[in-house]
């Protein structure tokens, strides 16, 4: 029903356009959707804001790495969550090829790395130091990994380089790739029942922080070029021998032609900035409260009018 009303508002607004917004093209602004909740809800939030302004919006599900190529070509118009650790490389590569622009940062700090729920610390008190984790490797062993510990990494298409890090730091762990984010939550959920120690890939901002308190493993601090220059980091002969940046950016990106085609929407996009708690809240509405993304977005917009109304002027 909600769709209907927004459609109606959009229709009415389109008939009587404001002078400011008149310049926006009536072609749909294509917003990509990926496979984690906060991004989906945030995209819906921004989409509904654009619709409120009288724009046409369409959502398309895409791969989170391939999307930068699509933004570059204008197939999709923007990308709302560019995580430094996860997509920095794809984003930079697309920037070099041209066609995509950086529309500024969210007021949020991102971090993604090896992570454990608090109960793990009881069994391995030396944490969060990575050396301590390595000494406890046997605690994380499963039937399949033998005497090595098991680290459940993100899906392969997230390109996390867990394996490379284990090799570079000569850790006693085996890296298993989960097929999806679901696998990660399932693993933590299953471990929670008998407080089994686990170490998995996780990130912030994320709903999981609210459900399972935990900490990131402290690896050797990130140095620029750790993924390109073997000399950086403790192991002089290997790449990826550092932790991920602990205060990564969360950017917005857009297709080069957006500013010209939808100037009003672009101006709003430039102002849009979400904080860590806001993003975690968006994820929570879907992951914990089981709302549909568009309902979650509507709910969020309703509860946070003071936040987004200021962007419109």
């Amino acid at each position, binding site marked *: *029903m909600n769709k209907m009303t927004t459609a109606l508002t959009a229709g009415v607004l389109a008939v009587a356009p404001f002078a400011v917004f008149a310049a926006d093209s009536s072609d749909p602004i294509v917003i990509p959707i990926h496979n984690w909740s906060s991004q989906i809800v945030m995209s819906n939030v921004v989409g509904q804001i654009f619709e409120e302004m009288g724009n046409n919006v369409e959502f398309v599900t895409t791969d989170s790495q*391939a999307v930068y190529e699509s933004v570059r070509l204008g197939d999709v118009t923007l990308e709302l969550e560019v995580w430094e650790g996860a997509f920095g490389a794809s984003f930079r590569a697309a920037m070099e090829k041209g066609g995509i622009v950086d529309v500024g940062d969210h007021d949020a700090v991102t971090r993604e790395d090896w992570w454990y729920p608090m109960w793990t610390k009881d069994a391995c008190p030396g944490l969060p130091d990575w050396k301590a984790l390595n000494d406890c490797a046997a605690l994380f062993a499963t039937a*399949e990994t033998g005497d090595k510990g098991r680290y459940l990494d993100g899906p392969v*298409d997230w390109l996390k380089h867990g394996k490379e890090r284990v090799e570079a730091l000569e850790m006693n762990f085996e890296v*298993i790739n989960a097929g999806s984010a679901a*696998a990660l939550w399932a693993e933590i959920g299953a471990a929670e*029942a008998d407080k089994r120690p686990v170490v998995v890939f996780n990130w912030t901002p994320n709903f999981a922080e609210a459900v399972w308190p935990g900490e990131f493993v402290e690896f050797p601090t990130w140095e620029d070029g750790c993924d390109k220059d073997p000399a950086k980091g403790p192991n002089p002969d290997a790449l990826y021998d550092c932790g991920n940046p602990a205060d990564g950016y969360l950017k917005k990106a857009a297709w080069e032609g957006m500013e010209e085609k939808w100037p009003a929407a672009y101006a709003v996009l430039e102002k849009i900035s979400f904080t860590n708690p806001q993003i975690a809240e968006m994820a929570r509405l879907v992951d914990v409260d089981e709302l549909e993304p568009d309902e979650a977005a509507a709910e969020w917009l309703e509860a946070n009018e003071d936040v987004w109304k200021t962007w419109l002027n």
Partner: protein
Amino acid sequence: MASVTTNAVSPATNQLTASTIAIWFGCLAVLLTALQYAGILPSWLHRLPESWIPPFALWLDAAFNFIRTDLGLEKLTRWFAEGPLQFMLDTTANLLYGKRRWPNFEQIPWSAIAAAATVLGYYLGGWRLAALAGGTFVWTALIGQWTIAMETMSVLMVAAPLAFVVGLGLGIAAWKYAWVDRAIKPILSVLQTLPFFTYLLPAVIFFKVGPTAGAVATIIYAIPPMILMTTLGLKKVSPEVVEAGKMSGCSRWQMLRHVYVPAARTEILVGVNQVIMLCLAMVVLTAFIGMPGLGAKLLAMMGSFKLGRSFEIGVTIVLLAVTLDRLSKAWVVKLPEHFEKGTPWWKRHKYLLVGVGAFAFFTVLGIFVEWFSEIGRRQSWSQGKEIDTAIKTFLAFDIVQGTTEKIRYVLNVWILNPFRDFLLSIPTSAFILLVVAGALALGGRKPGIYAAVFFGLVALTGWWDRSVITLYSVISAVILATLIGLPIAILAARSEKWSKRTLLVCDTAQTFPSFIYLIPAIMLFGITATSVVMSILVFAMVPLVRYTVEGLRGVPPEMTEAADMSGATRLQKLWNVQLPLALPTMAVGFNQAIMFAFFMVIIAAFIGTQDLGQELQKTLAGTDLGKNFVLGICVSLMALTFDMAIMTWAEKKKRALGF
């Protein structure tokens, strides 16, 4: 998923030499492996050195880029995607779920579609089909999945007719001109074994991410069976019918339109059935490249581990699949009705009129009573959370957990991992020799040569280890499927009643989009090799059971009676009479099981595998067309090797048995 085979039956004289060569190759392979274990095998015989591996991916990339930009193919495909294709998709999208595009109607009320489907079901197959068709749409609406289901249907409604037209055209061409047939056959074989991830990336690159790319991938995927069935049907048209057509002075076009195509009606309609089913299966899978709808929702729900909702969506997909399958199959069986001259128009088209009437009634009703037009999510009967809790409680029972844990432990630690390590420890050279020996022994010289070339190519691509891991999943799943499926099939084949029931179950299971099989596997066994093998196992068991039952039931009654008269026990009869006679048919099922397994193992990348599927999934995140294609071809080559060897064998056996 009918499979293409080259009907190469080598003369019996070759058989002897072929099997001797096979034995020699086998021995050589064992020797090479023994040498490797002893540590004295030269390393280049163990694995091809990196430097020998030609950069296929780079060459292919260069070729693709040339075709894409220099030849301007991309401009053409993009024009097609953004022009006509987008237009068609937008139109169906507007009608079915009210996307704001031409012709800018409101979405068709769900009740109107359900009513029309009910009438269609009644027309094609009586009350039972009417209940199935109507019930499916009512369920979809009530459970609150109408919009996503219609997103899927809107693409299906474009893709299936296009695949039908192209397939029919190519099929007619292949029947008419021998050279087209010759050119198409090998391409079809490769297309049918190519993993679906390989369809997806080129589709995205050439046809824009989103529904257009999804529709194109779906169309290409669904074309092969249509071509095959068309050619098959046209070839079977009896000369008398052709004569009759000629005598009444038909032109060539008239011959085709009024003689050949109607005479081949059954085969063509079977083709239509397959096109629809493959389209549905693929539309769900194209969620990976941004196709909205049931597949995307299922992916998202599984992605946040909401099992209840995933289950509900799974039910919807299965219901839709079964409905579409039954409706199109009923159409195959339904003979065209003939009316006496002078029957009034309304009488000849009474079902059409009733359908239109019901449709119009509910459309109007929908305007006045909102509920009949759209059911919001809050009104829906979705029990996602409750089912979720139920499933999780069930999984948390100690007995369930204990059992799955044990199965998982035994399979992983005692069977799967050692088997994988063993396969990986075999030197490449010995592995190829073994495969060639197998192909020689089964099919004779020609499959043997193909096996050598195909596996040699796989080794040359440099993806050997991953290919072996892929093969390991396939082999272990098919072996387990055989161990479980054969006894079931043999038991079922004992009685008419149970055979029918089993076939019905198989029929239904075969219509499930493959993705469905992942859900229970993940739920029970988590992210392990066991769930990968389990999902493949279930999927591959279907054709195996089906063909075994059919093979056993197809044994001529004279034969079993003769066995009964000579006083054979049940076991003797089964072992000495029924199984040998059913073997060729069973081999076809076995072959299909392997093909299904190759298909499924790639999808299982969603669970988390370490094989070619994982690498393929990775390529979807980029623009590595070359690598994507090389990986896909690896899977295809391995599957084709099996296909050729087994089908040649079955063909030969059939001939020997005089079928």
